[in-house]
């Protein structure tokens, strides 16, 4: 399907170019096609096909065992209008986008500013803040569920500090997402690296000029640093929103382990524990499609998640000097 798209340009349009350059372009086009073809094949099989197939399956009842049965718009009607979990999941996502992404940006910026100021021990510090980002999400989640357990170290420390009535953290519908947010701030490493690189690019002369003009640190940050790194911040916000809509591993593992109903024999996974506060759309796709073998509704959810993702991805694509820019 991709072949005509990438074929070297047609003759008429580039007729004005010298013959030699045209040949060179043609040769480059063919070589590019050669290098790109395995990936284009992969893209059609692993992205284009499933997107089309998801639309197909969204009109069928399919239990992954017996042949599919056409049900028209039934799955769409069910998911969009009769599936309260979707509303719960979207509300949680909105909460995470507003609170978690904002805090990630603010905290990430704070830590990277701190690094620019540190004169001694900077290397150790840099390693320390970057390591959590690399920890497997399952490991970091298990560690945090342990830390925040009713009998865990955090409550123990709080008790030493005189707090004898701490929140129920991962067992509380109110505190679940804040606890997850702390976990996400712990793994902030990559954002810090990106901001740090941007801070190093802030023009020194402007900062010095501002200082000579008598601008204090706050003013310098507000009028010199911030405008300079603003594109990077915007970029981080958008990718942050995209990743938050896909939030999966931490939420499902924390919910499951905190509920005590881990997938042992004879028990069912307790997705969304406690009281739906950890539900996100990707988890619903897993629950409906893989756990319950309810293919149709899962495909409707997949298409919704795709639409949500593309909405924000378009923003990345449209920006000048964005991700698809050549230089």
């Amino acid at each position, binding site marked *: 399907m991709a072949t005509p798209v990438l074929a070297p340009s047609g003759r008429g349009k580039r007729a004005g170019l010298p013959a030699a350059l045209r040949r060179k372009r043609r040769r480059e086009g063919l070589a590019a096609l050669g290098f790109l073809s395995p990936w284009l094949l992969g893209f059609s099989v692993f992205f284009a096909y499933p997107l089309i197939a998801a639309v197909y399956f969204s009109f069928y009842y399919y239990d992954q065992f017996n042949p599919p049965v056409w049900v028209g718009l039934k799955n769409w009607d069910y998911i969009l209008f*009769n599936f309260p979990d979707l509303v719960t999941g979207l509300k949680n996502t909105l909460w995470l986008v507003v609170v978690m992404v904002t805090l990630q940006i603010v905290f990430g910026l704070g830590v990277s500013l701190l690094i620019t100021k540190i004169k001694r021990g900077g290397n150790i510090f840099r390693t320390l803040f970057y390591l959590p980002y690399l920890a497997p999400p399952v490991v970091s989640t298990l560690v945090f569920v342990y830390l925040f357990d009713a009998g865990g170290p955090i409550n123990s420390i709080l008790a030493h500090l005189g707090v004898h009535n701490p929140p*129920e953290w991962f*067992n509380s519908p109110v505190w679940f997402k804040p606890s997850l947010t702390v976990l996400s701030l712990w793994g902030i490493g990559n954002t810090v690296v990106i901001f740090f690189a941007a801070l190093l690019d802030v023009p020194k002369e402007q900062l010095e000029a501002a200082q000579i003009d008598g601008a204090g640190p706050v003013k310098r940050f507000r009028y010199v640093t911030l405008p300079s790194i603003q594109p990077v911040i915007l970029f981080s916000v958008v990718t942050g929103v995209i990743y938050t809509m896909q939030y999966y591993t931490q939420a499902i593992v924390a919910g499951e382990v905190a509920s005590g109903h881990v*997938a042992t*024999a004879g028990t*069912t996974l307790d997705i969304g524990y406690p*009281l739906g506060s950890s539900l996100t759309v990707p988890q619903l796709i897993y629950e409906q499609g893989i756990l*319950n073998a309810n293919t149709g509704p899962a495909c409707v959810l997949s298409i919704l998640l795709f639409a949500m993702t593309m909405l924000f991805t378009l923003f990345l694509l449209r920006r000048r000097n964005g991700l698809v820019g050549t230089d």
Partner: protein
Amino acid sequence: MWPLRRMTGPAAAISAILTAAACAGNTAAPQQKITAVDPYPTSKPNVTITLWDGFSQGSENDAFNAMVTNFEKAHPNIHVTVTGNINDTQIQQGIKAGGSQSPDVAVSFTTDDVGTYCSTGEWINLKQDLAAAQIDAAKTFPAPLINYTQYQGDQCALPLENDAYGLYYNKTLFAQAGITAPPQTLSDLQADALKLTVKNADGSFKQLGFVPSFAYFEQVPGHFTPTFHLKWQTPTHNSELASDPGFTTMVDWQKSFASAVLNQAPKSSAKQLTDFMNKSMSAGEFTAGQNPFETGAVAMALDGEWRNANLKAETPKLSYGTAPFPVQDSDAASYGGGYLSGTVIGISSRSTHQDADWEMVKYLTTNTDSLVTFANAIYNVPSTFAALASPQLTQDPNFQTFVKVSGDPHSSTTPASPNGGQYQQTAQTWLATWEAGQVTDSNLSSALAALDSQIDKDTAAGVRPSGS
């Protein structure tokens, strides 16, 4: 094929036989006939069966493996690869996916999922195999067990030991509180529970008599089915929680129980109760010696007969008793019954050697010695009349309580649904909102109607459209 089976007697007669067999143990159990057709004689070529089961604790695994090894000895041409600690999602995924990684035979703890296994055709109907082997199911297995291993006439599973639920109580704590006998009604249960509740001065809990919550380990709503005569759904599988007075009685009972516990001086907040639950439950239900009943943090609990095995092995010094779970005050006559379910075993329709699979399933589900040994090892109630009558069966009174419950006419189970146990999951999730105070008495009936409608919608989206 049918003439081989005798007509089933009326339910009352069966109950009578069952009760007699269970209680006395001296009534001659109906003898099953010797196998007429050998499904997989030793002359046939060697075959390997992939068996998935849910047993996860060391002692359970050992006992089950010993049972399988005995079968292999009797059938040298059949080899069995056993994988434990598998849940139902994994079984269903494995069978649907098929291929070399798929299980041939599966052992499930989720009795509620039999409806799914039968209606999708993932497990094969064993009726003809039973007939060919001249096994009269009605004379071999107690009636409730036959009921929960079939769905709309499709006998796609067989019982592999039975589970009965009842009340566990801590005798030491009873003695300290001056209670002499286990409660028989819900009011007694509440009164005893209040006597057994110990609070700190600030209202936080040190010890609970009984946890008034459906989130507590085995106290899921389904296990209260006999207590409140819950109907769950109409015969056509429509949810009827709003119109079921039992369900409303149950949720009101929980609420008034919880508020009685909270209001007992010194007054406690709801958060102090959940704090206590979270803390005492955080080690998990099965961590040796850490279950709140084992630690003494909770004095009474609704639990399964298999808990005996954990208590014996993990806390041998714990002095405890067992009894049928208390009944509603207005319903004293039904005392003695309890919730029944059981481990079930079935053969995948994807298996390429179902004759060998059946040879093994037949052995595991009907061999009396094997069933009795296994029942004794894991403290399960045996699933055949012959095994129930065996003199080798453990005589421990704490275990015999459950043998009696399993034979009691007032015992019952949850109805099978083509959507498995989903309706109970949804109800349990809803009950968490009820316990959190998000639903009040004034909007209870509308909330239950909405819950019914949601369960029906989920079922409609989750099962094959009728007429196709």
